[in-house]
């Protein structure tokens, strides 16, 4: 995910504070001196306390937190709608806390647009005129902006509603108008304040997927606010978790899930739909039962005997994943005295890419008792996921407490029988029984 992100900083927040009350600066001074949010509550509300982060060009940066944690306040400072009490915000290289009103308007026109939590559509304008609003402010002529707005309306799935008033649309459709308005403005940075909260779950999922597609296609930098953890995990390249005005952790979804900064975050992520967040790579285990294609049946059999499994993974010469062999088949080969494994390699083990979400592994895992092979783009075997491991990961059961009892299908032929067949003859076939984790 992160490879595609340029290292240019699109938005930078530097020690942001926002306090509401009679003397906001005094509140901030006290906070900086180490007073807690509760201690200054008689003076007012500290909505955002010492927030610093950098959002890279092309990144989806999610700000997550419970209601009242200061998310909307934070996002409103990023485009200067609300003045910061202290600290600075840089958008595309311009410190917007230090520019004139006119320059700030320029930045908003060209660089940063916003989708509002409560839509904030212009109720007296039709859908198309709402979508074209940003372009109108940018000074585009009417014909051009209506044409562009029409394509955006189709994109957000509102074809046929262009000439309706917002009041004639449902909440979800209104939010799509809001999204369309921000997209039409075609700015590098998109601020989205709980943009999907008003949508029902199905449409919401669809919109989330669309947003990711859009982001991939247009390379927008998106700062997305949500109080829905699953949404945060699904959308975010990185997530900032807010609590009582402070950012308590910033990290990738996996980092937040697997390595929460404190109990608060841990508790927060407890209910996350882990199957959608965790990837194959994050739960896979090293492959132990593995041999190369050229190793021959005796080596295969020996490996399986040593590890007491009925199956071993087979790699090609270039270490790409070839398939599996089963002990019975190998046994037959050895009995026949053949030395070529190729005839008995089966492809009934599922191979998945390392970034596959766990939720997509459930089905193959149920259908076959074989562990799932995890491969990279070059089809190299990175690890395996036995069913137990998958279940443990989804259920958030710790797997660190010693090896799991069963990781591979147990041997179906007794060790003695195998040893008898292998005999005492020393065969110096190379055995690759090591994990091949990249």
């Amino acid at each position: 995910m992160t490879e595609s992100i340029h290292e240019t900083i699109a938005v930078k927040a530097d020690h942001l504070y926002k306090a509401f009350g009679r003397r906001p600066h005094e509140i901030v001074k006290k906070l900086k001196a180490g007073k807690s949010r509760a201690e200054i509550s008689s003076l007012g509300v500290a909505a955002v306390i010492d927030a610093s982060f950098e959002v890279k060009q092309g990144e989806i940066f999610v700000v997550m937190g419970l209601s009242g944690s200061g998310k909307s306040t934070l996002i409103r400072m990023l485009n200067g709608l609300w003045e910061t009490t202290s600290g600075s915000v840089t958008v595309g290289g311009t410190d917007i806390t230090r520019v004139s009103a006119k320059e700030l308007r320029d930045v908003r026109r060209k660089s940063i647009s916003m989708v509002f939590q409560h839509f904030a559509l212009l109720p007296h304008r039709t859908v198309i005129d709402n979508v074209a609003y940003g372009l109108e402010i940018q000074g585009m002529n009417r014909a051009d902006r209506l044409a562009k707005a029409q394509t955006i309306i189709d994109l957000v799935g509102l074809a046929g509603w262009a000439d309706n008033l917002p009041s004639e649309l449902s909440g979800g459709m209104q939010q799509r108008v809001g999204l369309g308005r921000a997209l039409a403005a075609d700015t590098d940075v998109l601020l989205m304040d709980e943009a999907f909260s008003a949508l029902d779950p199905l449409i919401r999922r669809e919109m989330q997927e669309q947003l990711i597609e859009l982001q991939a296609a247009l390379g927008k930098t998106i700062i997305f606010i949500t109080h829905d953890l699953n949404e945060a995990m699904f959308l975010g390249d990185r997530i900032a978790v807010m609590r009582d005005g402070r950012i308590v952790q910033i990290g990738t979804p996996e980092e937040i899930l697997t390595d929460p900064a404190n109990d608060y975050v841990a508790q927060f992520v407890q209910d996350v739909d882990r199957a959608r967040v965790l990837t194959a790579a994050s739960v896979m285990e090293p492959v132990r039962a593995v041999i190369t294609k050229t190793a021959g049946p005796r080596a295969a059999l020996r490996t399986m005997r040593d590890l007491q499994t009925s199956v071993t993974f087979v790699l090609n010469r270039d270490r790409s994943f070839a398939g599996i062999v089963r002990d019975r088949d190998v046994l037959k080969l050895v009995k026949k005295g053949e030395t070529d494994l190729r005839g008995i390699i089966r492809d009934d083990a599922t191979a998945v890419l390392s970034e596959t979400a766990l939720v997509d592994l459930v089905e193959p895992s149920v259908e076959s008792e074989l562990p799932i092979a995890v491969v990279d783009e070059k089809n190299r075997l990175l690890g395996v996921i036995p069913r137990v491991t998958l279940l443990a990961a989804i259920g958030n059961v710790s797997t660190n407490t010693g090896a799991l009892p069963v990781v591979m299908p147990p041997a179906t032929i007794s060790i003695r029988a195998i040893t008898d067949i292998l005999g005492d003859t020393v065969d110096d076939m190379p055995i690759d029984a090591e994990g091949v984790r990249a």
Partner: protein
Amino acid sequence: MNDFRLPLGSYVETFVEFITDTFGFIFDFIRAAFAGAYDGVQFLLGEPPFWAIMLVLGVLALGIRGWKFAVGSVLGLIIILGVDQWDYAMDTLALVLVASVLAIVLSVPLGILAAKSTLASNIIRPVLDFMQTMPAFVYLIPALLLFRVGVVPGIVATIIFAMAPGVRLTELGIRSVDKEVVEAGQAFGASPWRILRQIQLPLATPTIMAGINQVIMLSLSMVVISGLVGAGGLGAQVIASLNRIDIALGFEAGLAVVILAIFLDRITASLGSANSTGFIGGVRRALRARRVTDEPASSADTASVPEPARI
């Protein structure tokens, strides 16, 4: 009684005298301007034959509210004509129109200013309270001094008395526009002036129109008081009937005021609501409907493409 006495009244008197002496030329100018405006409107209303005026007002009523109101209006006007108050009614209408227009021209910008600046709002509000609660007769005295007898002091007193709701409701209308919608304008880089023009004023229009309606109604209520300073019209008729204890005349002139009031109230009230039921509203709706169906590309495929589900 003790000797304590605040000589507030004489201060004001001295002040007004001072103003009259020093800025007399300004007031002469205002007097000429107001009188000119009044004469112009009065000429327009009073010079044509009554049926022409009835026709114009009838068409106006038809356009704004529909045929029932048009018929009612014309009937009302016929009654005014029938009780022989036509000319006076036209004089009064001219006075009310001039005073209301001036009051609106002054009060709407003041209301915008008060909405934009809390400081301005804090200054304007008590002044409005003062203007609105001070008995209207009191304005007549300085108005008389400054503008001499005639229609102008009537107009001035009317403006001062009637302005307040115009300012207040304009401020209220703009301030109660959804904050997030205004923020949306800001977020896309619109200038404050543009936000005022494209977002705040359009959305505040119903409230502002309610204010304008109030201004006109209050202007009409000042008609009789204006009559005291020689403004003529129905007001003078009512005063005359009072002096002569002439019940018949009093009733007829009073009835004419009521008819004018109903007419003006209904007209301005329906201008405020966005979808007026009359002819103009119908045209507006028809135009919008046509724009929807004229959509060239999408009209063909909206039929086939399933509509997005309402969420």
